[in-house]
């Protein structure tokens, strides 16, 4: 088979996979009438749920970044005993069933657990609480941030950090002024991935909190209680919001990177 023939075969096979991804998503929008769509947008339960989902995922991403970025840096720069084990543990939440992840988190934060008891002394019950939902979202989404940030730090030449030290910077100064800005693109990309993954989490969240209802749970609830006809418009609105957020964040991230690249020319 010549090269153009092979390219054609690959294009057809790849096109089928692409169609498989696009068709169901397009179907949601095509089968939702404008009236249904706008009624759903005006539905206070839906808007409250979407706002809750967005805010928990955003807060969770920002909060966990405080620990995830330093961990990513350590994994990129240091060799230590058990490093491979740590890396495998970080990837674990991605590969286990998310319902199992929810059960694991529930074990950690339930009322009879150590953390649950400690939180209850200050009046917080993680189960059925946005904090619990945030923990469930973080459990399954933080690996995306860690891995992306780690790749970013690995791409920063160690030599630049050494140079910073010889030029009078402290190790924190070198991290803040050299490593972080140069790994910024990967870190932001990882944060977008974590945020997006948190938004879409259902399996782990539903075990921690049915109420307050994050949108994936609301879609499931509408489907279970009223059927596909009532679940689909919520899914369409949520998909559109997620898509918009994703696009806006990507544009902002690319703009930051582009500005940085342009400065280099």
């Amino acid at each position, binding site marked *: 088979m010549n090269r153009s023939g092979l390219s054609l075969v690959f294009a057809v096979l790849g096109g089928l996979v692409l169609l498989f991804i696009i068709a169901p998503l397009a179907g949601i929008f095509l089968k939702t009438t404008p009236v249904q769509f706008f009624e759903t947008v005006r539905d206070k339960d839906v808007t409250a749920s979407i706002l809750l989902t967005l805010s928990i995922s955003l807060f969770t991403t920002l909060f966990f970044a405080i620990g995830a970025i330093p961990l990513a840096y350590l994994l990129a720069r240091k060799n230590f005993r058990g490093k491979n084990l740590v890396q495998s543990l970080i990837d674990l939440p991605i590969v286990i069933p998310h319902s199992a992840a929810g059960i694991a988190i529930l074990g950690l934060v339930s009322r009879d657990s150590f953390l649950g008891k400690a939180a209850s002394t200050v009046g917080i019950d993680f189960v059925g609480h946005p904090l619990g939902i945030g923990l469930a979202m973080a459990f399954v989404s933080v690996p995306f941030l860690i891995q992306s940030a780690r790749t970013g730090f690995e791409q920063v*030449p160690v*030599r*630049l950090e*050494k*140079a*910073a*030290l*010889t*030029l*009078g*910077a*402290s190790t924190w*100064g070198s991290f803040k*002024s*050299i490593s972080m*800005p*140069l790994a910024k693109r990967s870190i932001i990309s990882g944060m977008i991935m974590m945020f997006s993954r948190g938004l879409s989490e259902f399996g782990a969240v539903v075990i921690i909190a049915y109420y307050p209802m994050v949108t994936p749970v609301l879609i499931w609830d509408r489907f279970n209680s009223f059927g596909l006809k009532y679940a689909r418009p919520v899914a369409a609105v949520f998909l559109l919001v997620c898509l918009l957020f994703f696009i806006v964040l990507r544009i902002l991230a690319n703009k930051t990177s582009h500005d*940085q690249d342009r*400065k*280099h*020319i």
Partner: protein
Amino acid sequence: MIRIENISKQFTSFNLSQVSFEISEGEYVVLLGDSGSGKSVLLEILSGLIKPDQGNIYLNDNDLANVPIRKRPFGIVFQDLALFPHLTVYDNLAFPLKNRDIPNADINLKIHEVAEKLEIIPILSRYTDGLSGGEKQRVALARTLATEPACLLLDEPLSALDARIRKEIKAVLRNLNRGGQTIIHVTHDYQEALSLATRIGIMEQGRLIRYGPALEVLMNPMSPFMASFTGIRNFIRVTLRKDLCDGRIKAWTEQNIPLIFQTDKIHGQGYLVVPEESVFLSLEPVETSAANQLHGIITDIIPAIHGFEVIIDVGFPLHSLLTADGIDRLSIKPGDPVYASFKASALRYINLQVK
């Protein structure tokens, strides 16, 4: 005065062993060595990036052992320059000054002072990625000089530059040194060393095997390794002894080939330097004033800057430098037999100090 005493560092596949030398203020020291000889590691030890297993570094009798990297009075310019790509040239230069909590107005003054010295004022607002090799090198030097280091450490500063820019940066380095800047420069290029150094150190497998005034070190290589760094092609191990046939003291190679040279010594061991431009070739034995004439087979003919380098197997490899015209006239090619002649007065004997 910088004093380096018995610096040693052990790595899994390499050791730096007992390196000691002294540098007076304003000297230009070049450390010559192959890659892997330990010269770059030594610079990183001096800058504080690597902690030695043993040994001390003194600046004017002050031990620097416990001085942290950021407070070391030495400034290093890495081989790859390590310019910060996300900062402008101005901000690269400002980086070390901001780390020293210098007021902004003084930072601006200092940057313009070093930028003027290195002639980079027109590029201060540019980012480093788009700069030429020479401009980058100047920026890296300026950034380190902004810290006013007691000693400038340069790791192969000219190796990545083309010939024209190399000449330009050499002039910059010479000017800095003339201005009183003490410099330690590591390289594998002896011509670079010859054109810049006041003192030269030769490093081999983690050891400083020779250290002294530049010309003295380059003119008197004490081993084939050192000779290879000084551009000497014919560096022949010999033993001096009397030729029983004619009673003359001759230098006998390891292949027991006698070579005649001018000496007042009657015995000893050492090396004979035969300048390759002094070796001339002929197709037949010829009667000339040259005292040495050896028969051999040409093994290779390699183009060189000023003609061709011909390698002849006369029992040992002998190098001869010929012009293109000379090659044409003799019509020689690898495999041809030739006679190589050289005068006794052209040879230089280096006596080996036998301990």
